[in-house]
């Protein structure tokens, strides 16, 4: 009785693990297939441009407004702490480094996952549920090349641009609050920022982060959509899973990338 119970529990654990590993393998195979078959998406670039519009341009408002407010809050909070040490002139450094290194890629990635990633999953999942993908296959059109790949590349191209706009907007917000409202010296704000922010160590690493997050989020989004059970409930669950999984993936990847980029070496 006890042994059978234990056995059943172990089996459940095992099947849970192996189904996750199986799904990860399937997702990797899906990504490989997608990249190999993206000739159509990149050749007929108009398809990808339409997806950049949906993933990138329509996310602009939320990215720009969030960036502005994050920068303004950073300046307010940072000033409060820095002025205790008589270092309020370093406000520009604080705002710029935290945005360019961390908050820009991460928050833009989280917003992108919930704004664009969920929309991609829902769209592809619904196309599958209404058998549009099967219809394409019947017409000898590869749905991965025609539907999935343009969305993937559209997201991968949009994400670094959105992260850069988020950081730029945040620094602008920090400037408005720090210099215009609080009255930190404008020269010190910009010059200390320029002296402390390094092109390769900070900005390029931030861009690399945003590219990695873009790939991760859109990969998860298109895979969840393509893999969704073709029912209303299945699509809604897949959409939720996209947001949850890609948010966790962004945070985990961010930790790994930060550990690789910003520790050791010459820049400490």
């Amino acid at each position, binding site marked *: 009785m006890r042994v059978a119970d234990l056995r059943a529990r172990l089996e459940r654990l095992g099947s849970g693990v192996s189904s996750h590993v199986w799904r990860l393998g399937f997702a990797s195979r899906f990504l490989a297939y997608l990249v190999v078959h993206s000739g159509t998406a990149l050749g007929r670039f*108009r398809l990808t*441009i*339409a997806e*950049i*519009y949906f993933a*990138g*341009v329509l996310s*602009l408002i939320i990215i720009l407004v969030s960036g502005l407010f994050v920068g303004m809050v950073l300046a307010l909070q940072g000033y409060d702490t820095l002025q205790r*040490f008589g270092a309020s002139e370093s406000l520009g450094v604080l705002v*710029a480094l935290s945005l*360019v290194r961390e908050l820009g890629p991460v928050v833009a990635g989280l917003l992108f996952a919930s704004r664009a990633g969920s929309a991609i999953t829902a769209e592809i999942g619904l196309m599958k549920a209404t058998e549009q993908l099967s219809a394409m296959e019947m017409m000898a059109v590869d749905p991965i090349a025609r539907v999935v790949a343009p969305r993937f590349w559209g997201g991968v191209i*949009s994400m*670094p*641009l*959105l992260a*850069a*706009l988020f*950081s*730029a*907007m945040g*620094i602008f917000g920090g400037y408005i609050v720090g210099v215009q409202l609080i009255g930190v010296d404008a020269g010190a704000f*910009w010059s200390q*920022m*320029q*002296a402390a*922010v*390094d*092109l390769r160590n*900070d*900005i390029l690493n*931030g*861009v690399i982060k945003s590219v990695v997050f873009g790939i991760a989020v859109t990969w998860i989004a298109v895979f969840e959509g393509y893999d969704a059970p073709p029912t209303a409930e299945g699509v809604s669950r897949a959409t939720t899973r996209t947001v949850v999984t890609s948010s966790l993936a962004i945070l985990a990847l961010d930790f790994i990338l930060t550990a690789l980029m910003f520790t050791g070496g*010459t*820049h*400490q």
Partner: protein
Amino acid sequence: MNRSTIDLWVGAFVVAGIAGLLFLALKVGNLATFSTSQMYQVQAKFANIGGLKARAPVKSAGVVVGRVADIRFDNESYEAIVTINLGYEYQFPRDTTAKILTSGILGEQYVGLEAGGDGVMLKNGDRLRLTQSAVVLENLISQFLFNKAAEGKPEPKEPAK
């Protein structure tokens, strides 16, 4: 939505994104400083570099004239070899002194150059002979305490008559 409107918006988005990247690179980062101008390298040996790091500024009279390119340890003299990149527009005499200084109390450390009086200017690959190491707080305190102890030592008393 019609096709050309989408194209217009995507074009504007891409231009804005690239403008954001350029803003970060040019206005926020330090792309403009020194990466384009010509540099020459000189080396200096220090007994102790304290907390000096690669890419730290090199200043003369408070003006940034170059950056620390590389810091290595010399196995023969047991000293640190600091390689410095200086802009070609800044020429220094050969007997220039290099010191490791600190900006402010908690600030970063930098290399300060003090020009000498020699007529011959430094060339690429030269070595600065006159250097002054970083001040290590512990050494400073122990020196201070030692001096205080030496000063405050009571004079030996006259033997009682």
